């Protein structure tokens, strides 16, 4: 298999009425571009291009797929279709919107709405963590609206992390990148392309001793909330299985955030899947179940018009 990176499509390349501007990001299995449609509207286009089994050099458009890798290419293609199916079944303001899907250049393309803003990861970096509680609650309530919809369709995201949560300029979140998403009921053969991000992946994504479920994404949401306060990912779950050094949120930020918020984060990050909030709605309820006793110290926290960004 190949290790060098494939070349992106050249700038100003035109395909199916879209003009490609530049590469936004590159992963092991795809390249995401910023492009414009015929009306000049910006879109994000994801091109299926598994690095390990395709070759595309400078100036080339159609990749070379050696015959011995055709089976791997096809296997990944089926998973890319799964992502397409997953996303097209979802119609929710907090989930990235698919605009088009087409086949060209011996591969396939997923066209998504592009919105101005930045990722939660960049937002956290810009603030060095320590995001304010009202922002946290409002933003994660919105993200959980989207996640609830995802789970309602029988899907698991399985790669939720700050880099995959887009913040529009109004602060409302959009769940991105369903490249790891799987149907919750789809327990097929061992996944050769199991994708996860250390720090955000739940323990069951490593040890496989417990069925993946909504609780797996809930762990990742908890890790995102933790990261939003800490400025970086919590200790990875595989390390926690050996030697759990993760300082509970309640201990770490006890005086700075409401006990309710901190307790909720700690509940999400429990190692045992059954002891976490079991689904998005439960977590939302936990996040927003304020009593006076739960208010943070000081009087700056005012009641929020929760939930959501619908």
């Amino acid at each position, binding site marked *: 298999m190949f290790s060098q990176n494939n070349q992106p499509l050249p700038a100003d390349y035109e395909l199916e009425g879209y003009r490609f501007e530049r590469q936004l990001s590159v992963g092991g299995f795809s390249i995401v571009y910023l492009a414009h449609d015929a009306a000049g509207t910006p879109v994000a286009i994801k091109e299926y291009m598994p690095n390990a089994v395709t070759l595309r050099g400078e100036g080339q458009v159609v990749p070379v797929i050696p015959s011995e890798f055709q089976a791997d290419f096809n296997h990944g293609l089926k998973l890319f279709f799964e992502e397409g*199916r997953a996303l097209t*079944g979802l119609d929710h303001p907090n989930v990235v919107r698919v605009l*088009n899907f087409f*086949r060209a250049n011996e591969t396939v393309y997923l*066209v998504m709405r592009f919105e101005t803003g930045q990722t939660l990861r960049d937002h956290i970096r810009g603030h060095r963590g320590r995001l304010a509680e009202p922002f946290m609650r409002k933003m994660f309530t919105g993200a959980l609206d989207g996640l609830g919809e995802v789970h309602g369709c029988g899907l698991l995201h399985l790669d939720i992390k700050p880099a995959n949560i887009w913040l529009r300029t109004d602060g409302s979140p959009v769940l991105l990148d369903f490249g790891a998403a799987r149907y919750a*009921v789809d327990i097929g053969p061992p996944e050769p392309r199991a994708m996860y991000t250390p720090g955000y992946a739940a323990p069951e994504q490593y040890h496989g001793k417990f*069925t993946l479920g909504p609780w797996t994404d809930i762990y990742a949401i908890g890790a995102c909330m933790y990261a939003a306060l800490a400025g970086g990912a919590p200790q990875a779950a595989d390390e926690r299985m050996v030697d759990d050094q993760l300082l509970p949120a309640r201990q770490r930020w006890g005086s700075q955030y409401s006990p309710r918020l901190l307790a909720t984060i700690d509940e999400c990050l429990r190692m045992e899947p059954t002891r976490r909030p079991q689904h998005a709605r439960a977590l939302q309820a936990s996040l927003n179940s304020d009593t006076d006793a739960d208010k943070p110290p000081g009087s700056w926290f005012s009641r929020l018009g929760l939930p959501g960004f619908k």
Partner: protein
Amino acid sequence: MNYTIAQESRIGGREINQDRVAWLATADAVLMVVADGMGGHLQGEVAAQIAVDTFIERFRSEAKTLLPDPAGFLATTLNLVHQTIVRYATACRIPSHAAPRTTCIACVVQNGQASWAHAGDSRLYLIHGRGPGSGGVVRTRDHSLVQRMVDEGTLSRAAAANHPMRNRVFSCLGGDVAPHIEVSPPVALEDGDLIALCTDGAWSPLGESLVSELRRSPLVASVPKLLDAAENAAGLRADNLSLLVMRWEAPDPDTATRDMQLAVPPERALAPISDEEIDLAVAEIRRRIPFDPNGASS
């Protein structure tokens, strides 16, 4: 082994999906399971999940790479599922009349033979394809009151389809009554045979079209199409619906050696995706794209 599997599970018009579908394969054996957690009981989805998890776990530990005794494996595992659900309910202090329950149909394919066992009204259809037995369909007999009445001759098939009690089963896993577990004798598979496992949410609204459509189209197209049809027929309050179908292909002596040389592990050497299948998948995804009043493209 050469086979194709397509599967889908949908929530229908319900608040949660209590159906569970799973399959798992070694190089020489395939396990397929469908469970329908029962509505009206607490945590039906937990019972269905226990069924699927238990099968997967036992198959992982016992299939090396064949199961020594598929029929024994199926019967033992179904009993184990029942006991596990009962233990779960006891641990959660759920009264037995309200305990989680599930139907279950499980099938093992190995050595060119299919074996299956079930409890309840989730079904298996074995649809003979291109082989000598072409035309025949075998299906499981529902453990339902309505099926019993049809068997006794007190109810017509047509009346059974609309009977108000058609969802009532007399055997299921979990609960305070020991399940009736029915193990079917193994059937030799021929090239092109189809094995379909489904919940009543799928078979009930479809009737005869389930078999005819599966015969007509490639699985990647027929499975979603059938579930669309079932959902449409069942209307707004459609039950959860799940369908898992395997197409069996007899080993081809000319390609066997080449398969062995594939650079991918056997469990990844899935049936290759054809040009036509790629077009079908792309077309299916395009059809699903919701109308977007703000999106200039699409």
